[in-house]
């Protein structure tokens, strides 16, 4: 089988690439991901007021990278074998959350089981659902048809339905989206994709009935931000001011008045792209976008080069989930989408999403580098 990285590289780089490939890592992806994480730490440093935040985040990113390296070593067949089991375990944990979950900030998302650190079962479903759907489809016909298609969709919807009432609409959609990405990648007809999309738009008014007040407010605010600029519209108004006032080159690191004087809410977490825009300008924001695009392009390419359907589907879907994070976050902070709690991958403060996403890239690397099965 032909090597798939036939683009021209400097001599030393080609060597490094080969050496990394031998330990099941991908140079391009690794460099781009580390660059994004470093970029994030730099920005986080300017907005963190307490000591130790940056150090803590460095440790988290380090742990996430370690998880990626470890998962890259596992063979794809291991994932295939464990996919249904992990899925079922995750599903039962989600039911457990509904029964005895820990509540914080108005949401019940966490489990505090004896002997384990507190964790969020919905987070593992971001990986488990694409794996399980790919496993299911891989076993049967590609593209899935009829009954199989319904089961595959069901595998996506059931966990999403369990997560939504926590309430956590963002994660619920990402979990379902990961599974549905597998189905789309598996080659179902485009008209089916279009029809499904149309059906969801049609179902939106029904969905409205199931939303919480705060979720409805977010959507109302998005549709009419000037209505209540000091209330629900405040966050988005301030983030647009932060981004817009950055201009071409930004106000300089640590010089952003919106970010440094607390006008920008959640400046170290969900709204951190606004800090990038304000302090580093359009140039800085575009650089970050370019790095994300490199990651997505490279990972999709790696997916394409996988010899197995399972591998292609899993790697492609995980990449699309990563893309969804980036797009939804930036679109939301810049006022293109309603506010949903989606962090900017590897840049926003917080460890959970970093671990999940880098673990996902670990699986992608594993699929890419293990060819003999």
């Amino acid at each position, binding site marked *: 089988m032909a090597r798939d990285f036939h683009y021209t590289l400097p001599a030393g780089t080609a060597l490094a690439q080969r050496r990394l490939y031998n330990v099941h890592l991908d140079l391009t992806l690794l460099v781009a991901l580390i660059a994004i994480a470093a970029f994030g730490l730099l920005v986080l440093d300017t907005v963190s007021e307490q000591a130790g935040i940056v150090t803590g985040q460095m440790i988290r990113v380090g742990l996430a990278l370690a998880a990626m390296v470890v998962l890259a070593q596992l063979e794809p067949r291991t994932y295939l074998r464990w996919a249904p089991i992990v899925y079922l375990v995750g599903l039962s944990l989600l039911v457990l959350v509904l029964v005895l979950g820990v509540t914080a900030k108005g949401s019940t998302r966490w489990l505090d089981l004896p002997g384990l650190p507190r964790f969020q079962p919905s987070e593992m479903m971001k990986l488990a659902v694409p794996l399980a759907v790919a496993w299911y489809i891989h076993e049967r016909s590609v593209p899935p048809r009829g009954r199989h298609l319904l089961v595959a969709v069901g595998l996506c919807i059931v966990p999403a339905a369990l997560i939504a009432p926590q309430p956590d609409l963002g994660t619920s959609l990402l979990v379902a989206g990961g599974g549905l990405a597998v189905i789309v990648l598996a080659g179902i007809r485009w008209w089916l994709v279009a029809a499904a999309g149309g059906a969801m738009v049609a179902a939106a008014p029904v969905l409205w009935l199931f939303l919480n007040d705060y979720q409805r407010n977010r959507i109302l605010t998005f549709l009419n931000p000037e209505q209540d600029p000091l209330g629900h519209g405040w966050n988005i108004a301030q983030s647009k001011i932060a981004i817009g006032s950055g201009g071409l080159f930004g106000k300089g690191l640590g010089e952003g008045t919106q970010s440094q*004087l607390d006008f920008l809410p959640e400046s170290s977490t969900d709204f951190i792209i606004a800090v990038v825009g304000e302090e580093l300008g359009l140039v800085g924001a575009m650089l970050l976008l370019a790095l994300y695009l490199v990651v997505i392009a490279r990972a999709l390419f790696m997916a394409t080069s996988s010899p197995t359907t399972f591998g292609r589907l899993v790697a492609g879907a995980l990449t699309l989930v990563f893309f969804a994070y980036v797009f939804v976050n930036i679109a939301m902070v810049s006022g293109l989408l309603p506010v949903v709690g989606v962090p900017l991958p590897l840049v926003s403060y917080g460890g959970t999403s970093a671990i999940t996403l880098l673990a996902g890239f670990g699986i992608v690397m594993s699929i890419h580098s293990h060819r003999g099965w």
Partner: protein
Amino acid sequence: MPRNPKTPQPIDPEQLRQAFAKRAFVLFVVVAGLFSVLGARLVWLMIVQYEEYRTQSEDNHRQTVPMVPVRGLIYDRNGHLLADNQPILSIAIVTELVGDLDQTLLDLDALVGLSADERSAFKDRVRRKRRPLEEVPLKTGVTPGQRAIVEINRHRLHGVVISPESVRHYPFDELLAHAVGSVRRISEEDLIDLDARRYRSTRFMGKRGVEAFYEQSLHGEPGFRQVEVDVYGVERGEFSRQRPSPGHDLVLHLDVDLQIAATRALGSRRGAVVAIEPKTGGILALVSNPSYDPNLFVSGLTPPQYQALLDSRDRPLLNRATDGRYAPGSTFKPIVGLAGLALDLTDWERTYADYGEFRLPNQRRVYRSWNWQPGQPGGQGIVNLRQAVFRSSNGYFYNLGSQMEVDALPEFAAQFGYGRVLSLDVADADAGVLPDSDWKRGERGEPWYPGDTVNMAIGQGDLLATPLQVATVASIIANRGLLVPPRMLKSSDGVLAETLAPNTQPGRVEGLAETDWEQMVDAMEDVIHLGNQGYLRNGIAWAHIGRDIGYRLAGKSGTAQVVEIPQGEEYDEELLDEYSRKHAWFMAFAPADDPVIALSAFVENGGGGSSVAGPIVREVVDAYLLGKRPETEDPTPPALASDAPLTPAAAGT
């Protein structure tokens, strides 16, 4: 092993891979397209709308904080401080920032104690309109200890502000309330007329007296600080600062010693004393009794306190000296005499036989003498103008007035400031009433009758004047017809008032010879000094104040009727209600040949001018010319006496 990974491959794997690659490529195009959307969005916000967002971001974190200028100080002519500024700590509440106002008040009460007055005044202020986010004052005079207690409990006292402020203080309390006036908290209505920029953080403005008239000079120019604030409004830094420039200091003509003497002379009687330096027009003393403590208006009166001041029958808030309108009575007679001379209707020799009763031709109404009694018409006998003045003959002036053309007397009297405001800088000074034919037609819808001039000739009828106007008349006669308008301000920051605001008033009473003035002064000297002449031949005030006087005082008494006594009825002082009794007047100047003080004394419902108002004038002039000070030698108020550095002026005593 849960499952064998070797599953049947339905189609050619390479074909599947190709199909996937195609699909992945389509999706990558979608991804790239959506990234372009994000990029376009960023370009839109950061390049196209850059200016707008840049401005919004500047507005967010830049704030202009005004700095209140220090209000100018007010001194008397001898350097005594009449109005100064004192730093105090006060607690105020920004009600918009408080969740539960009642709970906050309860907490504050428990911590520092709030009086019932403070609470009710606060609730009253809360109800009133004010600027948004303006602090509503709750308690003034907070001690540093109380401040510390509040600071410790800051977490549950959101919206509570403790700030040092410089507030007006009047060390002489009631003494100068009507002369210097006072400042008061700026109200919603005040803001309509005020320069919003200059007064952005000013909390007090002059509302009465000198404080009101010279508000613009005293206020000063505010400074401004450009500061950086965070989202909570907390200051994080300063961009620039423009210092405030303090208001101008004012030196008044007032003489606190004389003011004290005049206040003591009035005692507890309702009335007024106004003393003027004739050569400069400077107002030396301006007393209106009863008075009030102007400091109360600074700290804030409770509604019941204010209502009590308003409702008092003694009307302490009325400035009788400048706003009280009273019939001038016989103090008007010198003007009538001078009018007769100027109009060639009389001279110093011509006599009139005053046997008590005067009638106009073909009229039944009898105009009586002041010493009329039932069965005894009274009168002063045969009198010339000089005798008519020192005996205060009604008949002579009835007769003189009856010969004057309609409006001739009002026109002449206007030159003395009747019906006009001559004073240059007395806030809200009243013009009184100088009736003439136009006035009467407008006011009463009646023509001017000859009897109206007859009545006016003894200072009765519709003629009304303020004590300040009567003192101005004394000053004009003292100056032998030269009119120097009265003024409060002597100098400001070392510049004389005459330079700051040149006098544009017409300067001289027309139509009289120098000798006429001298003879009138002589006649007015006789009022006090001519004694031991026998029945109906002594100066009318001699017995009361002239027997032991050590300098030449020229003056004229006045006893003005308050209620109309029906024809033929007896006027019994004792039977009248206290508030219907006659007003007592005395106007005078001294020394007669080179006057340094001209004044009027007025006692509301006081009775006889010579017996009641005369001694007040005598006491005040004694104090001024002979240095007869009241018992307290040092006019420095007790509160400041021990604190020499605060009153550099005290050295001047």
